[in-house]
Each structure stands twice: as C-alpha cells, then as structure tokens.
C-alpha cells in the first residue's frame, strides 16, 4: 500500500516535470490556438471548398455537382454584388485615407488648442455598433420631407429624396455610415505613425526653405507609407466583408438589390434560400478576391521589395 502510494507520487512528479520541461511547455502554451485553428478555421475552410462543389438540400441530400455552382455565379445578382462590394470598398478607401490623414497631420500640431478633445470627439463614433449607427442614419435618411437629410437639402431648395431606395443615394448612405464610424480610428492610426517621424527631417527641410505643403508630400506621406499600407489592408477586408451596414438599412432584401454585397448575397442564398453549395461558391470567390486585391495593393506599394 505505502509503497504504491510513493510510486504514484513519483509518477505524478515525473509527469509534471515532463510537462514543465522547456521542450514540452511551449506546445502547451500554443495549444489553444492550434485547436481553434484546426476546428474553427481549417476545417470550415476545407468544408466550404467541398460544399462549393455540392448541391445541398437539407442536411442529408448531398450530391456532387462539379463546377456547376461556380458556373451559376454568372448571373446578374452576382455581378451586382461584385459591383456593390467593389464600389463600396473603393469609395471608403478613397475617402478614409486622405481625409483622416490630413486631419491627423493638422492634429499633430502642438500649438493647436484642444487637440485631445478633438481627437476624442472624432473617435466617439467608433464606439457605436453598426446597428446603433445604422438606426440613426436609417431614420435620418428617411423618405419623409421632415427627415434630417431631406431637411438639410431643403435648406438649399432641393426637394426631398428617397435616399435608401436609389442606387446612388443608397451607396452614399452606406459610405456616410462608414466614414462616420471610421474617420476617428484612422486618425488614431495616422497620429501614431506621425509621432514616429524624426523631427530632424522637418528641421532640415526648413533650412532648405521647404514650405508646409512640400514637407507634407515629401516627408510626411513617404514616412507614413507603412501605416497607409496597413490602413488600406484593413479597409479592403472591411469593405469586401461589409454586410451589417446593409442589413441595418434594408434588413435582408433591398430594393433593386442596391445593398446586396457579396456577404449579403452569401447570407441570402445560404440562410434565406438554404442553398449552401451555391453560397459556399460565392464565399470562395470572395476569399480569392480579397487575397488578390491585397496582394495587388501590397505589390503596388512595393511592400515585397526589399530595400
């Protein structure tokens, strides 16, 4: 009995020292990620690829149909979703890089009074959820002449617009929502980058007699290149995976599909029409698009060049 107990104690100690050895311990630390990656990432991706070649009705009726789902992508809804997603991504990047960049450069001026209050105020919208912000804009873009944006254009003598029912104005409403929520975040990114630029660069430019515009384009922008690349990269993900904004405005179906983004299309075919195979095919093309756009973008900015 006593001998046995000592034996198990020794065993436990042995096991503990093996677990605690520098050879084994790192794997225990990273284990949570490895498990999550395998179960909630790798497996879903693989099953998504497989599903994209299947016709799935319910859960049991699964037939392999080759490339048919991908051929079915050649339809007006998919083209529309591509157009909406590309345009939205393009417009949000076209605004959410230069606008916050200029504001951040202005905020970086130590002589500016109240700069912390300005920075915090511009950041506040980022605290709201897409749904809360969407609720505000949904009713502010109301069709009634009394709704906020119609009142505002009324000041200039324009007649009321049915904002959320037109293609152009619907896109405008989506972009406005995004710009409101993200300007402050991008300002914070650019400010962090600006604070890393050595002051001597500006001083020597002063000696050479450069004006502030020249300094902005020849020192500030080139020095911020890594930050700009980072912000574009996250904007590409955000833009192409946009869905909640559209859902907040139109729920799952919008007039004339003006809010049908690629992810909205996945949601619609997958969860409303239960066509999982086809929805998976859309998802795979979306993944490929995002990867391609980012590689292209990074190439364009010479990210892969070693200099």
């Amino acid at each position: 009995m006593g001998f046995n107990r000592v034996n198990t104690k020794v065993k436990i100690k042995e096991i503990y020292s093996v677990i605690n050895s520098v050879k084994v311990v790192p794997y225990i630390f990273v284990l949570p990620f490895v498990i999550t990656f395998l179960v909630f990432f790798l497996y879903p991706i693989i099953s998504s690829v497989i599903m994209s070649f299947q016709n799935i009705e319910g859960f049991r009726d699964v037939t392999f149909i080759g490339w048919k789902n991908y051929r079915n992508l050649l339809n007006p809804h998919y083209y529309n979703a591509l157009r909406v997603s590309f345009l939205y991504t393009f417009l949000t990047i076209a605004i959410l890089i230069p606008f916050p960049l200029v504001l951040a450069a202005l905020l970086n001026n130590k002589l500016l009074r109240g700069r912390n209050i300005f920075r915090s105020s511009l950041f506040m919208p980022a605290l709201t959820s897409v749904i809360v912000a969407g609720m505000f804009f949904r009713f502010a873009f109301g069709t009634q002449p009394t709704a906020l944006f119609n009142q505002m254009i009324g000041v200039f003598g324009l007649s009321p617009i049915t904002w959320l029912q037109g293609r152009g104005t619907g896109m405008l409403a989506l972009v406005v929502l995004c710009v409101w929520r993200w300007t402050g975040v991008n300002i914070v990114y650019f400010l962090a980058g600006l604070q890393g630029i050595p002051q001597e660069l500006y001083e020597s430019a002063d000696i050479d007699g450069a004006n502030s515009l020249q300094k902005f384009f020849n020192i500030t922008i080139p020095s911020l290149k890594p930050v700009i690349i980072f912000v574009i990269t996250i904007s590409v993900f955000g833009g192409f995976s946009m869905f909640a904004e559209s859902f907040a405005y139109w729920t799952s179906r919008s007039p004339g599909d003006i809010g049908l983004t690629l992810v909205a299309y996945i949601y619609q075919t997958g969860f409303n029409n239960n066509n999982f195979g086809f929805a998976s095919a859309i998802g795979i093309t979306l993944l490929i698009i995002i990867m391609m756009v980012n590689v292209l973008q990074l190439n364009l900015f010479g990210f892969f060049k070693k200099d």
Partner: protein
Amino acid sequence: MRTKTKHSKSGSYSSFIIFTFICIIFLAPFFFMLVTSFKPGQEMLSKGLTLKMNFDAMTLNNYKIIFFEDNRYLTWYKNSLIITALYTVLSLFFSSLVGYGLAVYNFKGKNLIFFIVLLVMMVPLEILLLPLYRLMITLNLMDTYLGVVLPFAVSPFAIFFFRQYIIGLPKELIEAARVDGCGEFRIFFKIIVPLMKPAFGAMTILQALTSWNAFVWPLIVLRSADKLTLPIGLMSLLTPYGNSYDMIMPGAVMSVIPIAIIFLLNQRAFIEGLTAGGIKQ
C-alpha cells in the same frame, strides 16, 4: 523666425475652427439620437429622424418602457453583458498564453504557427459563416452563449498584441526565476502576468467593445427571443407595424452610454489597444 511662429500660430487658429466645425458634425448624431429618444416612437415612424424639436412633447415614457414595462430590453442587456464578459475573459486568458508561448520559447514549428496567426488575421470571418453554422449544429452549440463566443475566443489579433508586448519585457526576469527553480507556468502566472497589466487593460477594452457590438455571428447562432443580444434585439424592433418604435432610440442610447463612459475614463488604453497591434511592428 518671428514670422514663422506667427505663421504656424495663425495656422493653428484656422485648424481650431475647422476642427470645431468637423467635431460638431461628428457628434451631432449622438445629440439627435438622445433628443429623439425622448420623442414618441410613432413620430419617428411618420416623420423620420427630424431636426424639429418640440420640448413640450418630450417624455420619459420611452425609458419607462425599456426599463420597467417591456422586459425584452433588460433581457438583451443581460445577454450582451454575459457574452461580453465570457468572450473577454476567455480571449484574454487563451490569447495571452499563446502570445507568451510565441514570444518566449524557441521550438519546432514556432514560425509556422506565427505565420498561421497572421494568416488567420487576414481572412474575414464572414467567409466562414456557413461551415461554422453547420459546425455549431453538429456540436450542439446553436442558440447558446458558448456558441457565440467559442469560435473566436482565441483571437489572433490579441495573440499578436500580447506577443509584441511580451517580447518587449526584460528576459532576465524569466532566466532568474528559472535559476531559482520556478516552474514554467508559475513564471507566467506569477511573474509575467502582473507585468502585463497595461496590455490586459488595452485588450480588455478592445475585446469587450468588439463583442458588445458584434452582430453578424450572434445573429446566426442565437435563435430564441430570450437569448438575443442588444444589436440583434434592436434590429428585431424594426417591424413594419412600428408597434415597438418607442424602444428603438432609448435602447440605442442606453447601449452606447456605458461604452462612452468607459472610453472617456480610459482613452489611453483604447488607443493603445488599437495602435500597438497594428503598427509597432
């Protein structure tokens, strides 16, 4: 020299005016949401969100409804709090462990795992919605808090953040503790964790905000009315009949106020959480 300072001073005056103007525009939606939350919901349905303010017609009735009469709102609030707490605790715990493993040790496969962390960060979760949904059904996690939290509990962004932070800590502390015969887990929990307080602070805020505002995944997992979170619950009020419109704006306002308070008290942690992961590479 004098002309130069004069020049940038006048520049700072004009940017002061520009920023005052822009900030008013950016803060206006909060003001309008607050004002509208005191108006009858029927008015928002018929007139849209409007500039006109009739202070006599304003009432606290909407707030009475969400807090005392219609118990749906407090249920959503409770669900959001539970899910946020669960997600934040799990993701901080697991991600700091992984971040430590990647920062401190040299082991076979380390670079591969770190590469995968970065890769996962690059793929939007929306692409995985369908297969994850099927997985949740198989695992019997549909309509549960755990189903909302578990797939994203080990956050690659948080791992990356913690790894960067731990790399910046002095290695001598760990060496000294090893010499003293301290076990590896004890080193992490007793020596490293206390040093990571600022990192935990920044990540707590960021992860809690992400989870509090999450919409797409909870929308898919949560099904029954008593499980909904705030964003989903608020969306469910938008019926064409408009019988619950009284609850929309006060509900939206009350979901933002706690976050706004936490933000105003911990601005530095917010901003560190955002920037450190992305830029200090």
